[in-house]
């Protein structure tokens, strides 16, 4: 048993020896040797802040460079949406000016007559009579005849003034106080007037006569106005018989009568009635405020058609124009014109309201027009100022074109039209569904951070903005470092007057105020209207050139101190070539410091770039940058309303810069543990 146990132990020992090599205490294999690189790495990853910074940076790089590849939207893609937008859709205006259609062979009216025509028509309309006489300012006389409600005919008439009935004229005034009588200048004195006046006043009579003339009294408090009554009919030429006078008196307030085979027409001219003998008449023109609309939209109606239609309206209701025959029909007060070959649908409609779209296009279909007319007529009748009606309206896209569904039918939506009477013109507004740019959309599933003022996806612009900022700062740092190494290296290695010269250059560049210069250049680029990409290029070069001084000073300092160290003395003693000494021994030793400076510098450049862009002087639209994204919503209202845009963007800037600083610090501590604090 015991022997057996020993055997087992021996066996186990043997096995163990096989697996494990014997290592003596002083074996060098016991020492784990890390290369300098591994050491730096180990120190770096032990630094919490550096790790945080690195993670942020990695996320930021993924966000800016990888995400755009899989993200469906680009930085300049504009999004649209269908939305209700209250628009002034159309306007219905009653036509108040009259279109003059001259009769064949008629001369054009003088502007003196034309200017008064509308006024004359309106006074004829309000008087309710069928015709009126016009003493034209051009010296001719005209007769205006109402044919229909909205159609008038103007005739030129060689009429002659025959007689007039003049009305009462003021004779004088009598004041009760002081019994003072003042007669109007130039009136004839009448015998026995004073006595008759006194008598009439005493008797409180309104009328009295003296010296064969009749007077009337109008009392106004203590003053009487004495009117001399009209003297009956006075003739222009020879006196006519009493029959004429009777007829004239009967029609003194206007009208016409026949006498001795002539037609006389009485017109009121001020207070007087004037009788005219009508003479030869010639038709001058047809006046109308009717509007004729074609039913099939897009059909243009010729002048010939329109004139013939109006003629027919007051005439025999049929006409032919453009080689076709038409009939005017009155259906329940609505006038429409039918093509004789097609009596199912009216060819055109006559009305007094002009209805047109606000955009100037005549794209309202006739059914809607009719509906509008109906509503407007009803409003007119009932004196309403606003009214609404329902109508199915076609949807339009961004180009203002109609949209069709899969079957090719117009997409329509029921809409409520609001009609408002604004000083006689009717304005129709409607919430039309239009295809418009989706600006400042709230965050949704489609746009996680919403859209900006140009309807572009904010998240996409954040990604591309990060890309611009990161690339920008890396290129600037590259330029800075490149110039810095060359000039600093030359200064440090060669020393002497070269060193002195370069260091004075460094002093000068340190002293140049870089932000003001960037602002000046930015506004200059604006004035020159440089393209966004060229602008960015210039900005990078300028920033790089302005920033090399720091790097150069650092490199020079490093090289100066390295030059004195033993290993450099050794390279000299060994007799290495200058080139090899610089590139194999000096530069690698400067590298750690350089990397630290560059990493910390990246953050500063991002800040400079975004500040410039914020001021509108850096990277320009349509290129996205974080700075411009913030400045686009920095007005008081926008700032409050769109915090979901500018706060995340600002945080992105902050995070990136913080991360670069963390990593820079971490690298510095890792490269040079003596510096670690």
């Amino acid at each position, binding site marked *: 048993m015991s022997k057996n146990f020993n055997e087992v132990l021996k066996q186990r020992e043997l096995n163990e020896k096989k697996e494990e090599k014997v290592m003596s205490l002083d074996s060098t294999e016991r020492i784990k040797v890390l290369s300098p690189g591994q050491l730096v790495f180990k120190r770096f990853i032990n630094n919490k*802040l550096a790790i945080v910074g690195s993670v942020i940076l990695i996320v930021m790089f993924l966000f800016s460079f990888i995400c755009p590849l899989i993200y469906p939207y680009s930085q300049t893609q504009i999004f649209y949406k269908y939305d209700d937008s209250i628009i002034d859709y159309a306007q219905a205006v009653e036509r108040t000016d009259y279109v003059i259609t001259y009769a064949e062979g008629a001369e054009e009216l003088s502007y003196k007559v034309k200017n008064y025509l509308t006024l004359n028509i309106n006074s004829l309309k309000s008087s309710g009579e069928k015709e009126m006489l016009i003493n034209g300012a051009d010296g001719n006389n005209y007769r205006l005849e109402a044919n229909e409600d909205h159609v008038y005919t103007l005739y030129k008439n060689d009429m002659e003034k025959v007689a007039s009935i003049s009305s009462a004229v003021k004779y004088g005034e009598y004041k009760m106080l002081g019994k003072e009588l003042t007669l109007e200048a130039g009136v004839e004195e009448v015998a026995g007037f004073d006595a008759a006046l006194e008598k009439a006043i005493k008797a409180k009579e309104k009328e009295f006569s003296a010296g064969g003339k009749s007077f009337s009294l109008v009392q106004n408090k203590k003053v009487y106005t004495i009117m001399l009554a009209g003297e009956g009919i006075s003739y222009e030429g020879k006196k006519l018989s009493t029959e004429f006078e009777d007829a004239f008196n009967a029609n003194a307030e206007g009208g016409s009568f026949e006498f001795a085979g002539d037609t006389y027409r009485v017109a009121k001219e001020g207070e007087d009635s004037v009788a005219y003998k009508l003479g030869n008449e010639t038709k001058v023109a047809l006046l109308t405020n009717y509007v004729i609309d074609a039913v099939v939209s897009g059909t243009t109606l010729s002048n010939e058609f329109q004139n013939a239609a109006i003629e027919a309206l007051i005439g025999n209701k049929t006409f032919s124009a453009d080689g076709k025959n038409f009939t005017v029909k009155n259906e329940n007060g609505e006038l429409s014109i039918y093509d004789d070959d097609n009596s199912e649908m009216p060819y055109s409609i006559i009305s007094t309201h002009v209805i047109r779209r606000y955009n100037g296009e005549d794209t309202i279909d006739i059914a809607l027009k009719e509906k509008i007319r109906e509503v407007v007529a009803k409003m007119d009748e009932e004196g309403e100022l606003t009214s609404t009606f329902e109508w199915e309206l076609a949807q339009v896209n961004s180009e203002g074109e109609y949209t069709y569904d899969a079957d090719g039918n117009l997409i329509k939506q029921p809409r409520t039209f609001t009609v408002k009477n604004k000083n006689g013109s009717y304005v129709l507004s409607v919430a039309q569904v239009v295809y418009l740019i989706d600006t400042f959309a709230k965050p949704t599933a489609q746009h996680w951070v919403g859209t900006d003022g140009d309807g572009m996806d904010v998240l996409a612009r954040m990604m591309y903005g990060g890309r611009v900022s990161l690339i920008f700062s890396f290129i600037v740092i590259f330029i800075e470092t490149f110039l810095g190494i060359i000039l600093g290296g030359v200064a440090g290695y060669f020393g002497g007057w070269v060193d002195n010269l370069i260091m004075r250059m460094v002093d000068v560049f340190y002293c140049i105020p870089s932000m*003001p210069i960037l602002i000046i250049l930015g*506004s200059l680029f604006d004035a*020159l209207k440089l393209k966004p990409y060229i602008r960015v290029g210039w900005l990078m070069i300028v920033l790089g050139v302005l920033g090399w001084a720091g790097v150069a000073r650092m490199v020079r300092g490093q090289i100066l101190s390295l030059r004195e160290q033993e290993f450099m003395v050794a390279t000299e003693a060994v007799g290495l070539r200058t080139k090899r000494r610089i590139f194999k021994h000096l530069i690698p030793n400067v590298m750690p410091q350089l990397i630290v400076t560059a990493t910390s510098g990246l*953050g500063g450049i991002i800040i400079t770039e975004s500040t410039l862009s914020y*001021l509108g002087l850096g990277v320009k639209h349509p290129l996205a940058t974080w700075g411009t994204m913030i400045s686009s919503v920095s007005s008081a209202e926008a*700032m*409050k309303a769109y915090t979901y845009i500018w706060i995340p963007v600002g945080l992105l800037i902050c995070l990136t810069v*913080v991360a670069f*600083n963390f990593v820079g610090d971490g690298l510095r501590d890792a490269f040079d543990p003596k510096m670690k604090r």
Partner: protein
Amino acid sequence: MAKFIARRLGLSLVIFFFVTFIIYVLEYSLPTSYVEKTAMELASRPGSQKSAEQWIQELNAQYGMDKGIVQGYFVWFGNSAKGNFGDSWSQTMPVTQLFQKCIWYSFVMGLIAFILEIIIAIPLGVLAARKQYSMTDYTVTVVSLIGISMPTFFMATIFKLIFSVKLGWFDLIGMQGRNYAILDRTGQLLDLANHLVLPILTLTVVSIGSLMRYTRTNMLEVLNADYVRTARAKGLPENKVISHHAFRNTLIPLVTILGGSLPGLFSGALITETLFGIRGIGYYSYNAMVGGDIPFTMFYLAFIAILTLLGNLISDILYAVVDPRVRVN
């Protein structure tokens, strides 16, 4: 010492000469079309008393822009040395007068922010260094780094959102309240002070980080020094070690850097003043630069260059004065 200062001064003069030359070259090489267009635009503004030709003639007389580049530079330098900077195009008043009008707002703002910065940053930096790797230290480090990393415009916008829009304590922009005209003198002063609060806050928050970091770094260096170890070894109380031995030595670089930034108080805050509409030198110079007002821009750039050089000079001298170990050679 006098020799040192004289040498530094001489060197500064040479640098100033070159810096202004570079700035002059920049302004000189602005395209003529741009200059003419700007002059035309400015002359057509209401209140402008001169025509565009007059502006350009004056510019040529003042800046020698019609002469060769070197000759022109000397024309400008000569005029400027006599204190003759010409008239600002945008404000139609002599540049020096405009400068006197606006500089004090900038200075007051800068000074208050500077004092606040010192009061807040230095104690916090010292505290962070004393308790290295503690929660306080990390907080201070992170906060100062965030302060450094915040772009001024973002900080300003956040303050505007919080204090002006949400809380409504301050006006969003400008220097005068709505009823400024009817206030008495103290009221006007208080109104002005009220409008300066947010810009000063922004300036302070933005600048606090770097000073805090700098203090902490230097304090740590001092705390690791042998003489601090000696002080502790001989049994001094910790407070005494910190205040007498460590902090006084930390002050050396601090005084140097703060003294160097004193002239900077006059340089104005370009971004902050513009964002808050404070009519300081930063605001006017920004508008001059954007609007192509060459006389004021040139003056401002030269002024900034002088301030920078002065700052460097002061910190060099202070370094030698404060630290007796530094021997001037």
